[in-house]
């Protein structure tokens, strides 16, 4: 009996402590002050996976935004305004992203949101920011028609369709390839790349095999063996760098002699580390080339490296550019949500580190596609 009582007491104590702790954490520094050091605060909300399996993408996006915001605040280019980031985690789960969006617009009353990262997250938040009239620009959600019919939703990333079409053309005309195999990851990104590439490649030449894998898979030998049977001369990998590196390795082990092709999801140094020799000679479309000698790119790369001790990837670069687009919008129109929306919508030939960027009437991005090639363990620009 005594033991039981003690247990109950402990339980009650722990429970109360927890509630208190949470209360403090939740109500903590909920600042309503919109000024800081005499400057008016403009709040930028971010939404993306900072934990869970997709955390790598969300973390890099947040870092890209942070670099841009630090830079802008330090340079004083915004005059009487200062930018402040409110970042929200989604765990990679779109229903939690919906909560994050709702919180940002209602509780934090952010002026603008940069995010979300995964297309499903952005899709789940689209209606929320539309209802709240808060402009939102995603640096990486590539799903087809995502921004359509939503005047508050924009994105700054390469269109999957354009990437796939341009690479298919390049592969046939410049590289002289004719028998394509496609291996795509079973998410919106992989699927829209695959659809576009398959259509274009079939038009110009022939697609002999299409196989699919899941995010996070490690063993691709089954799919690769099926592909090998069809004797393609090239393999288009519509997915991300981790899986692509392993696919390249395993294809090599199976003795496949194919030209590797891919999209911007491949462009990360991790691909080179995992893939090693197996990814030599691979071509991939990209919006960002970190070795580009232009000062804007080098400034970003150096600032990023200094802050995070790591090379920036496409996610970080596109997030940086998205933030720059927002900053330009504030400079040209003003800091209110409506003004920022107008500013973003009017973006034309913005000289970003991921190329010249315009936003079309659907909120979609028009930007140059560059093609990178892996040579001697480094990405170099092929076109």
């Amino acid at each position, binding site marked *: 009996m005594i033991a*039981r009582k003690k*247990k*109950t007491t*402990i*339980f009650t104590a*722990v*429970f109360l402590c*927890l509630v208190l702790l*949470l*209360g403090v*954490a*939740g109500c*903590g520094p909920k600042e309503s002050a919109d000024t800081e050091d005499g400057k008016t605060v403009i709040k930028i909300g971010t939404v993306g996976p*900072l*934990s869970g399996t997709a955390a790598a993408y969300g973390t890099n996006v947040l870092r890209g935004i942070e670099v841009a915001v630090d830079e802008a605040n330090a340079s004083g280019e915004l005059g009487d305004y200062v930018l402040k980031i409110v*970042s*929200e*985690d989604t*765990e*990679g*789960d*779109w*229903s*939690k992203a*919906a*909560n*994050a969006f*709702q*919180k940002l*617009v*209602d*509780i934090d009353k952010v002026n603008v949101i940069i995010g979300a990262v995964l*297309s*499903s997250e952005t*899709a*789940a938040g*689209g*209606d929320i920011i539309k*209802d*709240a009239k808060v402009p939102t620009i995603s640096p990486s959600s590539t*799903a*087809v028609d995502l921004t359509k019919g939503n005047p508050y939703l924009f994105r700054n990333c390469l269109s999957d369709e354009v990437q796939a079409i341009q690479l298919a053309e390049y592969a046939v005309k410049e590289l002289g390839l004719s028998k394509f195999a496609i291996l795509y990851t*079973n*998410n*919106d990104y*992989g*699927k*829209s790349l695959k659809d576009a590439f398959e259509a274009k490649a079939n038009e110009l030449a022939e697609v002999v095999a299409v196989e699919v894998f899941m995010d996070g898979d490690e063993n691709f030998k089954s799919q690769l063996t099926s592909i090998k049977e069809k004797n393609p001369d090239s393999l288009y990998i519509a997915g991300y760098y981790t899986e692509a590196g392993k696919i390249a390795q395993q294809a090599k082990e199976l003795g496949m002699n194919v030209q590797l092709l891919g999209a911007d999801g491949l462009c990360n140094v991790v691909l080179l580390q995992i893939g090693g020799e197996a990814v030599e000679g691979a071509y991939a479309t990209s919006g960002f080339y970190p070795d580009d000698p232009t000062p804007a790119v080098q400034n970003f790369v150096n600032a990023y490296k200094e802050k995070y001790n790591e090379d920036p990837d496409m996610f970080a670069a596109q997030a940086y550019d998205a933030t720059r687009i927002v900053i330009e919008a504030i400079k040209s129109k003003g800091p209110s949500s409506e003004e920022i929306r107008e500013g973003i919508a009017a973006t034309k030939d913005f000289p970003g580190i991921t190329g010249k960027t315009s936003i079309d009437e659907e909120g979609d991005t028009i930007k140059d596609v560059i093609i990178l090639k892996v040579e001697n363990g480094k990405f170099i620009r092929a076109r």
Partner: protein
Amino acid sequence: MISPYYLQLIILVGINTIMALSLNLIIGYTGQLSIGHAAFMSLGAYCSALLTLHFNLPFIVSLLGGALFAAFFGILIGIPTLKLKGDYLAIATLGFGEIVRIVCLNLEITGGAVGLRGIPKKTTLLWVVLAVLITAFILNRIIKSRIGRALIAIREDETAADAMGINSTYYKILCFGVGAFFAGLGGGLFAHYMRFLHPKSFDFMKSIEQLCMVVLGGLGNMWGSFVGATILTVVPEMLRSVADLRLLIYGAVLILMMRVRPQGILGESPANGGFKNNSYSQWIQTRLKKSLRKRSGSDKT
């Protein structure tokens, strides 16, 4: 006027309460360990959303359609799998949940990996409150009836329940069907609130989250399901300011909770936990008693 963010939280608390209540019927009252409850939610969500999108049916009809669809699968899956006991049933339901998720990810009609967009927003606070009340009312009536007694008897001791003339297979399937029905109802409300669906949110972790709601609140306690759903919906939101520690804390709390109060916040039986007498621990108990008997030298035929 309540802010949309808090409104959203209240609505999610409501939907999660429905999920937890229906799962509680299966786990807490009938003692069948199911860890694929999110699958029934997704079946209801997709079915009702598609009914709305393609046939433009009234909301209530879509909701019921989704719920019945989920119930149908609950029964369909229940018939073969409910022969299994304890951990084995848990694993089978886990496998079923994953299969549903993968199928939803690859079908054309569900939008596949791109997700299902453009579902009209029809779920309001009123709908959710009504649904919670109706769910609680119906489940409470069932539990307080002859059927509920039979379900609890099955949880306590299936062999003895059989001996009392209870067709345990029938009742287990019935409870699975009813549980799946309300899970499907919750799914329908969820779909018409979120306006978007993607299989990602109906994975294994979601089922675990729902299980945790039930256990945290207290197995076999209706109020417990409400408390558990509220805590696991609201607390993660309160912890947003410490985003990277959120799941860390969640994990630690689960371990601590099981140590200090395994019967849940509102659980009743202190010393040994209400769930103790499933068939497996029964088996262990029997063994214990047997060895005691052996020592006391009495008969065991």
